[in-house]
């Protein structure tokens, strides 16, 4: 066990916060998108920098990844990666309520990523009495080969990250995508402090 491992209580607490946030987020999304949005039970685990590429690659044959940074008070910060597969993309404009010729595919997934990320994290933040700000979402690459290259070429300045993975399903549009929240070391300590405070209040 290292200093960045969550205790069992902390892990349960975080899981519960995420579950509640997912419930509310899917409700808001359903209203906005006018269709049901299912969020699968999330997985929470630690990932080492050198294995980031493997876990991303293993979990989905994503062809496009959109990154968006988030930052709140008390040093809660990280990066959200939204991962898409090619078969997911056919009716995206339709789902978002746009005409297909109004915007490019890149813009569609960037738009959707931003909506998914901010909706979930806003609810999550309000549960821990926090407030999130976001960077502009960026398409890392529309080509997984290049994403792999991109990630593999990085010399990360972190060793360990907390990884929360949530899968979204919009069955009416046969659409899936994965949201992977990555919280770097320094922020894990801060999240642990917040979790401890919440646990103490019970």
């Amino acid at each position, binding site marked *: 066990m290292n200093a960045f491992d969550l205790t069992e209580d902390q892990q349960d607490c975080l899981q519960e916060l995420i579950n509640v946030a997912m419930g509310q987020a899917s409700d*808001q999304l359903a*209203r*906005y998108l006018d269709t049901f949005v299912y969020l699968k039970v999330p997985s929470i685990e630690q990932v080492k920098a050198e294995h980031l590429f493997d876990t991303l690659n293993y979990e989905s044959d994503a062809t496009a990844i959109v990154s968006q940074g988030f930052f709140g008070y008390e040093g809660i910060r990280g990066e959200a990666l939204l991962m898409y597969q090619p078969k997911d993309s056919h009716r995206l404009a339709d789902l*978002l*309520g*746009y*005409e297909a010729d*109004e*915007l*490019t595919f*890149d*813009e569609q997934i*960037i*738009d959707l990523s*931003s*909506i998914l990320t*901010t*909706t979930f994290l*806003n609810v999550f933040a309000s549960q821990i009495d926090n407030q999130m700000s*976001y960077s*502009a*979402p*960026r*398409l890392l690459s529309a080509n997984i080969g290049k994403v792999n290259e991109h990630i593999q070429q990085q010399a990360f300045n972190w060793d360990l990250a907390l990884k929360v993975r949530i899968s979204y399903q919009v069955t009416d549009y046969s659409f899936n995508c994965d949201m992977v929240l990555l919280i770097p070391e320094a922020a894990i300590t801060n999240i642990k402090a917040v979790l401890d405070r919440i646990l103490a209040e019970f």
Partner: protein
Amino acid sequence: MLDGLCDKIINRLNTGVLLLDRNFNILMWNRFLAVHANQHDEQVIGKNIFQVFPELPRKWLERKLSSVIQLKNQSFCGWEQRHHLFELAHSRPITTDSDFMAQNCTFLPIEEHGQVTQICILIEDVTDIYHYQTQLKKTLQELALSNRIDGLTQAFNRKHWEECLAAEFSRARRHHSSLALVMLDLDHFKLLNDTHGHQGGDKVLIETAKAINELLRMGDLFGRYGGEEFAVILPNTELSGAEEVAERIRQTIALKAVDYQGQNIGITVSLGVAVLAQQDKRYEDLISRADNALYKAKFSGRNRVSLADAS
């Protein structure tokens, strides 16, 4: 007092600030926008955003803004997807070729009692980033090209040519389409080098490559295989068609005289032709059959086309 100070700061920001009500009427804008849009407050304040900026993609933006109101989420629009939303002048009119300011726009919900009452649009000038990214992209494309080209002859280099062949080979096998390969070698090139020097030899290589290139169709892939050896991939081509191309190359080169320092250098080529056959399991198999045909052409007297044995 702080309010006044904030006003001052907002008006000194190099970021556009635009405040809308829920009906998309403009409540406030800052000096940055007034200056770059070159309009007066009275032409703008209280007016609908689509009236003041008729260039905006109305349907798309209305949907975008409604998502901000409904989800109470901030939303973005970046220059990489849309170069600009607002047609604004920018700060590098002289040293870039951008007509309008490249923009990153952020749409922020302003909440009161849990309801979004206003939307604040922040507009950043990213013309600089746009300009340098575009330059970088262009440079990378040039670099990628020069990585594929043989510097002397401007034909594809060996590495890239082989990659092309590998791709064409698997495509032809997958689609059961035909594929031909012509390998050719300059005759007595060593002698030519000895007589006229390496610069004379280089000139011959350049001129030969140029002449061959002019005979090829779009889609044919021409590369320098080795020192004085060239190769042409002919997709969707049967043996008779490939033989015709090879013969045309042979004749053209034989009739051509390369001028080097006032001397005419005559040159001929020998060619081997092979087409994709069942027995070719790898693209290298096709190369070796074309290569064998080329040696056959050499042995039977040079300046001729020889076909690979039919399988």
